[in-house]
């Protein structure tokens, strides 16, 4: 027995190998070569959000990068100790693990903030630095080396990019101007890598708008930024500071950029670029026409009265090039309002109007369709077409019956403008002049107009309560706690929202008779049976006659705060029902509340008393009419017979009387006679 339990030498050797393999294998599996076994293949791809992306990591490029000495798992830390092949996709690499200060700066910067907002255009670390092929800043091959910086930044910040069009960037032709500036020339033409590039002034990671006091290009910091290179420049500028400017604006020390415009830094006292007067040289001519016949006249007075009075022509008609004889020859694009009105333009692009415009639909309204062009006014200015009382007219231009939007519309809403005008909102706006009343844009939004079938639409079923709640907030709160709201209503049927009862464009005052009577039909659309039984009761019958003074659905159940009657909050719960009856029947007791306001005599199980009373009464009626009717019908022939006999008797009597007359006349005697027997008075 003992001999058998002692391990042999062969066994011990096997154990040692197995343990060694077990101990080493995790480490072995994490080697870069293990990763590259898959990721080294050029054709290694995966599906991400419907797109095929390459997962190839060039071994050479990685080896040459500044991170070449690191392990894959140094950055892809989540893979440490994991079996390979690993789950995908991996969490984003966190550069902050090593580059904490830079990451922090980036997070606080313009770019970082945009990223947190979810702006898809915001640059990540990799956008500028690359991924596996990151090189040192001093490496000329790095995209952030001085010579490459303008191109890296220019990927987004040159004319024509989405960023330039859709984000609030207040400079134009940045890259072009820079390359012609003294800094750009030094860097790009003369190869002076110490010449200021984008990052020199804006910093690499801490980029902030000039309006931010912490920004390197904020007015207060400009001097410090420029003097990084231009040390002791004050000494040179003593003359200027001492001179005219100093005297004219004693309280403001001129900043570098007051004279040396950013991006165009070449020599002092640059002109402001294109002045409006330059444009008006031609465009003030009333007869000016484009080649295609469009009037090119610009009414400067109109522009001066507009919301954009302080905005120069070239700010909207961007792309001018002052170095050309006709600077406007360089304009390649239509006015893009989104350059300043970024958020609005983004919303518009998502809207039905915007989508149609992008599709190139001729009917789609662009900004100017509603806002005008040079004379555009704010929506609070009463003469603006977007002023509240003018909005219905504005939308009517296309949405009135027969107009271009109305003719292509297939839905159930018709006579929209006319209905709106007669609605409570329309009357409030147009008759009572209440500018806070809901207008078209009040419900449909101004720029985000979408058909109600779109889940993002303000008038989509799911969003209607919130849309109405923007004004009727208290009611929205009540409604959202009610059984009709999705949070409480447990039904597979569609729950009602505001417009199911109140309608959309024909909305009426809820205290007007028409609405009060209609609402019972509205409730009946879903609560068919119960509405029918209501009409069998006194309340229902009076309502049906067209009078509103008896209890209707909402008088007992509530309007927006409807709850199950088992819910203590219900107006009809045991706690509240008596008080609800007392609203109309002062002195009503709990027994009184036992009245069946939806009684029907057709349900013997639920209401046996009513059922049997009804059939008892019906039997009584039928029996009485049967006996009475049969009696009468049987009688009828005899009654006619009696009538005939009476007539014959009458005639016989008359004949007799006539004979007597004749006899008496013959005898010459005086006329005597009894009063006529028949006088059926």
């Amino acid at each position, binding site marked *: 027995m003992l001999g058998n339990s002692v391990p042999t030498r062969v066994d011990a050797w096997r154990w040692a190998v197995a343990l060694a393999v077990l101990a080493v294998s995790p480490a072995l599996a994490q080697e870069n070569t293990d990763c590259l076994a898959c990721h080294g293949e050029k054709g290694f791809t995966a599906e991400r959000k419907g797109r095929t992306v390459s997962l190839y990591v060039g071994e050479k490029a990685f080896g040459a990068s500044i991170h070449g000495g690191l392990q894959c798992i140094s950055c892809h830390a989540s893979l440490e100790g994991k079996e390979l092949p690993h789950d995908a996709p991996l969490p984003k690499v966190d550069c902050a693990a090593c580059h904490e200060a830079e990451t922090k700066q980036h997070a606080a910067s313009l770019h970082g903030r945009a990223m947190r907002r979810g702006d898809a255009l915001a640059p990540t670390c990799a956008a500028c630095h690359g991924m596996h092929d990151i090189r040192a800043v001093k490496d000329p091959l790095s995209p952030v080396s001085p010579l490459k910086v303008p191109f890296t930044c220019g990927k987004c910040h040159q004319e024509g990019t989405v960023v330039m069009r859709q984000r609030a960037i207040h400079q134009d032709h940045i890259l072009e101007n820079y390359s012609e500036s003294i800094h750009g020339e030094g860097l790009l033409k003369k190869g002076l890598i110490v010449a200021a590039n984008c990052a020199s002034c804006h910093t690499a990671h801490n980029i902030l708008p000039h309006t931010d006091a912490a920004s390197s290009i904020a007015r207060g910091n400009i001097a410090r930024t420029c003097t990084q290179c231009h040390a002791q420049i004050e000494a040179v500028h003593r003359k200027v500071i001492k001179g005219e400017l100093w005297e004219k604006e004693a309280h403001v020390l001129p900043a570098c950029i007051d004279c040396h415009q950013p991006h165009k830094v070449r020599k002092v006292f640059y002109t402001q670029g294109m002045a409006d007067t330059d444009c008006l040289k031609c465009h003030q001519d009333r007869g000016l026409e484009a080649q295609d016949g469009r009037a090119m006249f610009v009414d400067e007075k109109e522009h001066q009265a507009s919301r954009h009075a302080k905005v120069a022509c070239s700010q909207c008609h961007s792309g001018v090039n002052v170095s050309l004889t006709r600077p406007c020859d360089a304009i390649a694009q239509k006015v893009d309002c989104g350059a300043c009105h970024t958020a609005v333009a983004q919303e518009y692009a998502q809207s039905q109007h915007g989508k149609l415009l992008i599709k190139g639909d001729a009917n789609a309204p662009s900004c100017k369709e509603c806002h005008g062009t040079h004379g555009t006014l704010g929506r609070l200015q009463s003469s603006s077409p977007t002023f509240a009382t003018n909005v219905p007219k504005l939308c009517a231009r296309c949405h009135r019956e027969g107009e271009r939007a109305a003719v292509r519309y297939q839905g159930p809403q018709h006579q929209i403008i006319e209905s709106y005008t007669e609605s409570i909102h329309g009357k409030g706006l147009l008759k009572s002049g209440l500018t806070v009343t809901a207008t078209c844009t009040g419900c449909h939004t101004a720029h985000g107009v979408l058909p109600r079938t779109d889940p993002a639409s303000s008038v989509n079923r799911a969003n209607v309560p919130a849309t109405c709640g923007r004004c009727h907030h208290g009611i929205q709160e009540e409604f959202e706690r009610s059984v009709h709201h999705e949070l409480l209503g447990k039904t597979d049927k569609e729950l009602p929202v505001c417009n199911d009862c109140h309608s959309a464009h024909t909305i009426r005052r809820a205290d007007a008779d028409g609405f009060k009577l209609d609402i019972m039909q509205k409730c009946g659309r879903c609560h068919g049976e119960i509405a029918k039984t209501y009409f069998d009761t006194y309340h229902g019958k009076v309502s049906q006659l067209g009078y509103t003074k008896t209890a209707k659905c909402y008088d007992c159940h509530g309007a927006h705060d409807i709850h199950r009657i088992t819910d203590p909050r219900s107006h009809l719960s045991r706690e509240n029902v008596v008080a609800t009856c007392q609203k109309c029947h002062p002195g009503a007791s709990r*027994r*009184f509340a036992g009245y069946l306001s939806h009684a029907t005599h057709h349900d013997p199980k639920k209401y046996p*008393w009513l059922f049997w009373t009804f059939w008892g009464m019906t039997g009584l009626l039928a029996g009485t009419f049967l006996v009475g009717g049969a009696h009468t019908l049987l009688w009828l022939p005899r009654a006619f017979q009696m009538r005939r006999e009476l007539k014959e008797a009458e005639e016989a009597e008359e004949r007799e009387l006539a004979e007597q007359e004749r006899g008496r006349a013959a005898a010459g005697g005086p006329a005597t006679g009894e*009063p006529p027997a028949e*006088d059926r*008075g």
Partner: protein
Amino acid sequence: MEGSVKTRPLQFQRFTRLNRALHALMIVSFIALAMTGMSLKFSYTAWAAFLSRLLGGFESAGFIHRAAATLMFGLFVTHLWDVNRKRKQDYGGSFLKLILGPDSMLFNKRDLQEFVGSLKWFVGAGPRPHYGRWTYWEKFDYFAVFWGIFVIGSTGLMLWFPVFFTKFLPGWLINVATIVHSDEALLATGFIFTVHFFNTHLRPEKFPMDTVVFTGRMPVAEFKRDKPAEYEALVAAGKLEENLVEAYQPVVIRTIRAFAWTALAIGTFMVLWIVFAMVFAYR
């Protein structure tokens, strides 16, 4: 009498002045109740909405209904008082004599015989019965009113004062009262406007109309033919002369006819409407 042109013929007086006044007022009250009530019962017809508007809206119709009901109760009480007075004057204060006398309104053996006799006469199996002062169908109409006042009146009060009645009755009894009130009213209206109209006013031999209940008097010959038993009893007792009065002037007759025809027309229209509502528009 002889030679006097102005003398009007003598007629038998069947109803007293009070009887006639009560019947006339009963007509007004009944039609008002029926019109206002039916407009509610058949509220699902356009007719009802029209009628309700004509009467000044449901509130006004409700007021008319209650006012007419009060009048009806008043008539009922007045009639009871009249019967009681008659008991004292004509029957020596004896209830028994009132009930068992020949002029009693209660059903008795004679009514059963006359009912069977009538049926025989209808089918040609016998002569016309020798009817007395009150025939069985007249007694039926009379007690139908008693029954109606009791049933419709009591349920009507419950519907009028639900808060009071539910102090000691369960609430669902109001629903029962509604059915009873409404269906009994339908019975009353239907019966009065068809069977009663035929039996007492529109019978072919009386066509165009028997107005005795309005004038209170009828020609002696007609009386003799209609109620032979009563006629013979009066003649035998020598009391016919006491009960003869002068006929009304034609202008009075014309006025009475106009009133009666109006009531008849309204009743007939209501019957047509009810039939229409129940057959074609019922839901």
